[in-house]
């Protein structure tokens, strides 16, 4: 048995409880350990500016995990995830600046605030479906931005500076900022991903899928569709809130522009490019979109320096939106299951290794 456990290819699980394990083979467990070590060493291996992008990717991944609960699993299209992030960010900022809470309390508070508002915004989902709900979340996004802009306590959308923090005697400074937060965001992300996995493989997760696929049948199964949708909204916006709290500290200030419609669209794009409803997709999507943006940024900077295009025609500035839009469309058209599917194929390959089939 041990040998076959190493290179297990088929499904040899004989008890239902075995069906529940996440990392079953030694190979998988070994790669897990290597992976963890690599992750811990990462900040030492890559350049500093890239580390900043890694941090951003991880924060976005938290928000995308949440989006994958509402939109990916429950089918409630949410074009306002950035606003929920914003709620978390502002709550965290108020907690940190007004109540002087330390960050490890302020950020969870942001999560709770996100969850609270999310549940409230989710209320229309009790009556609305699909498209209509998408429009409702869009409206929430706009109302949120407007409200912040009119709230003096929130600096009317202007910057609320975050205090610098320290933990175990290590201070967050300009120079170690990205690394400091890396070691905070990483465990948070891992924990959030585990919780996500757990919820979604249990009755609560299944209820969400049921509601997405067929809410009438779900009701006939004894699932309260309203509760399921609200739970989804609550969880999804809790994740957003946590991401917002992290982002507040990471950005050192909370400004409304960070939580605008554009960000919501980006989060959706990340979820889709990664593969809706997929755990690896929740990391791959943000990775891809951030990398694409960086790449296009450098490409346009480079293009801007070449005088190949006529004046007034700004190829450089066109690149980012073009690439972003095309990426979304191409994925949807040719790989609707997203990067997660590529990931799956790669994994399959290694699982079967050394056999070819």
């Amino acid at each position, binding site marked *: 048995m041990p040998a076959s456990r190493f290179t297990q290819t088929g499904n040899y699980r004989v008890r239902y409880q075995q069906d529940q394990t996440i990392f079953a083979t030694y190979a998988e467990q070994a790669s897990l350990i290597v992976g963890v070590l690599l992750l811990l060493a990462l900040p030492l291996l890559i350049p500093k500016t890239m580390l900043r992008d890694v941090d951003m990717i991880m924060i976005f991944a938290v928000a995308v995990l949440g989006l994958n609960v509402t939109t990916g699993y429950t089918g409630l299209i949410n074009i306002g995830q950035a606003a929920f992030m914003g709620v978390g960010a502002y709550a965290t900022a108020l907690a940190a600046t007004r109540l002087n809470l330390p960050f490890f309390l302020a950020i969870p508070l942001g999560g709770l605030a996100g969850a609270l508002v999310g549940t409230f915004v989710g209320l229309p989902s009790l009556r609305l479906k699909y498209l209509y709900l998408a429009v409702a979340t869009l*409206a929430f996004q706009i*109302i949120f931005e*407007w409200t912040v802009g009119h709230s003096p306590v929130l600096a009317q959308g202007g910057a609320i500076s975050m205090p610098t923090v320290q933990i175990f005697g290590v201070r967050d400074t300009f120079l170690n900022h990205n690394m400091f937060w890396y070691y905070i965001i990483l465990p948070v992300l891992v924990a959030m991903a585990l919780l996500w996995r757990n919820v979604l493989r249990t009755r609560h997760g299944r209820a969400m899928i049921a509601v997405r696929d067929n809410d009438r049948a779900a009701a006939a199964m004894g699932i309260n569709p309203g509760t399921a949708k609200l739970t989804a909204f609550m969880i999804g916006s809790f994740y957003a809130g946590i991401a917002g709290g992290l982002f507040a500290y990471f950005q050192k200030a909370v400004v409304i522009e960070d939580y605008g419609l554009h960000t919501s669209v980006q989060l959706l794009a990340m979820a*889709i490019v990664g593969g809706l409803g997929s755990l690896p997709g929740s990391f791959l999507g943000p990775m891809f979109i951030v990398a694409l943006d960086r790449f296009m940024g450098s490409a346009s900077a480079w293009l801007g320096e070449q005088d190949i295009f006529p004046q007034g025609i700004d190829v450089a500035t066109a690149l980012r939106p073009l690439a972003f839009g095309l990426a979304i469309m191409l994925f949807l058209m040719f790989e609707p299951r997203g990067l997660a599917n590529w990931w799956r194929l790669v994994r399959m390959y290694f699982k079967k290794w050394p056999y070819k089939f």
Partner: protein
Amino acid sequence: MDLLPQLLIAGVVIGSIYALAALGFVLIYKSSRVINFAHGQIIATGAFIAFALTQSGLNFWLAGLIAMIATFLLGMLIERVFLRRMVGEPIISVIMVTIGLSSVIEGLIHLTPYGAGNFSFTTPAALAGDGVSVLGTQLSRTQIAGVLAALGLLAGFTYFFNKSTLGITMRAVADDQMAAMSVGTSVERVFALAWAAAGLSAAAAGVILGLMSGLTLGGLAGIGLKVFPVVILGGLDSVIGAIVGGMLIGVLENLSAGYLDGLVPGGGTREVFPFIILIAVLLLRPYGLFGTREIERV
């Protein structure tokens, strides 16, 4: 002078443009159940094409016409290249395709000289003269022409959908594509036509808007969002709804600017008021004033 009638008149003027913008939206939704987030960008495309043509010396009216033809073809092209592949895909994917499309079109507009900056049409001679005063509000000829053009197009489309076989077929396709195909409907052609017609009306909206309040990419594309309250209020799949919804949102928005802005520090309530209406409508009457109620039986 009384404020109220003036607010109403101004609301109707702006509302008719909302209605025209919403029309294109409704056309697409009606036939293919696609929510088009790129509509604002198509409006901008139409407006900038017309503007570019006038810049190169073409007569304004001709430029407008050519722009409408161009966006008609653009709509067809978009359907052909992108949307056709998405038939049968989940709704969120289709929505995201239009979101991606909006980004792509914006990128493309940045490849022209119009991506950044503000521009305005030189008012054509026929519209340059004195306007008229309606209920104490001065309306320019441009505004009046805009309202008339919008209403004309809207009336035409209403007739089309209710009386012509093609119009009925477009609605049929929205209901059940397979069944429509079984009687020989080319669903592809119906979709292409819907997108084309949407493109045409978008250019009309863009040109009128450009004439009235100038051209900026952001402003024109922004109409794409303003349209949501309109279509939700009117009913996502109703041409009449687009008209009534557009007018109502225009008027309500103006009333809020006229009466609420003074009460709210900073004002700007017109920016958010339509979206509050939107939420209210969704809660009270999700299918809007004229939208078709989903028939849902188990």
